[in-house]
């Protein structure tokens, strides 16, 4: 299946890309997506969105999903 992955702000700079696409059948949840794209341990502060809604690392992903990773938000 295909997962669209996005990174924002300082996390985007750390990973070095804003968007990527992964094609993998061994990916079950958001945590798997993170590990597949970052090759880094999970960041405690990191926030996660699945199809533009907040989600947890345990959320199951399906073909065509958009998964985003970003640091704590600082708007307003």
């Amino acid at each position, binding site marked *: 299946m295909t997962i669209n992955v996005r990174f924002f702000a*300082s996390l985007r700079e750390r990973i070095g890309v804003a968007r990527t696409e992964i094609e993998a059948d061994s990916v079950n949840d958001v945590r798997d997506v993170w590990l597949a794209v970052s090759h880094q341990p999970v960041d405690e502060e990191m926030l996660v969105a699945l199809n533009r809604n907040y989600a947890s690392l345990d959320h199951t992903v399906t073909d065509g999903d958009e998964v985003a990773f970003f640091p704590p*938000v*600082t*708007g*307003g």
Partner: protein
Amino acid sequence: MHIELRDQCFDPWAEITGFRDRMLSPGQYGACAVFVGTMRDYNDGDRVRSMYLEHYPGMTEKQLESLVDASCETNNLMEALVVHRVGSVNPGEDIVLVAVWSAHRKASFDACREIMEALKSTAPFWKKETLDDQSGDRWVHRNTPGS
């Protein structure tokens, strides 16, 4: 309810009166609470020259709509208006406007603060500051608590 992202300066007071004239009738509401957040020229002890506001197009609007909608319900608001800047912002420019209208003051005070706190902790915006001392850019790490 109206939510808007802007990549240019806006005048919050003109937004408020324009919105009120379009959406509310005189005599209907008894209370209006407003918060305007403005870019300072200092932060964490440093002089700040400019700022860039990154966001997550699609999710930011959705998240704002969802949190404003929840507060309208909880507080039985008559109307709510949120405008937020994205992109480059200079000191003295307004970053965020929250304005709410209700029959009595308690609802509007509660809702205005609730919307700002929810926005601060959940709306996908990220600030990157450019300092005056040319030491380079830095991401704002975390919002200060508001309550």
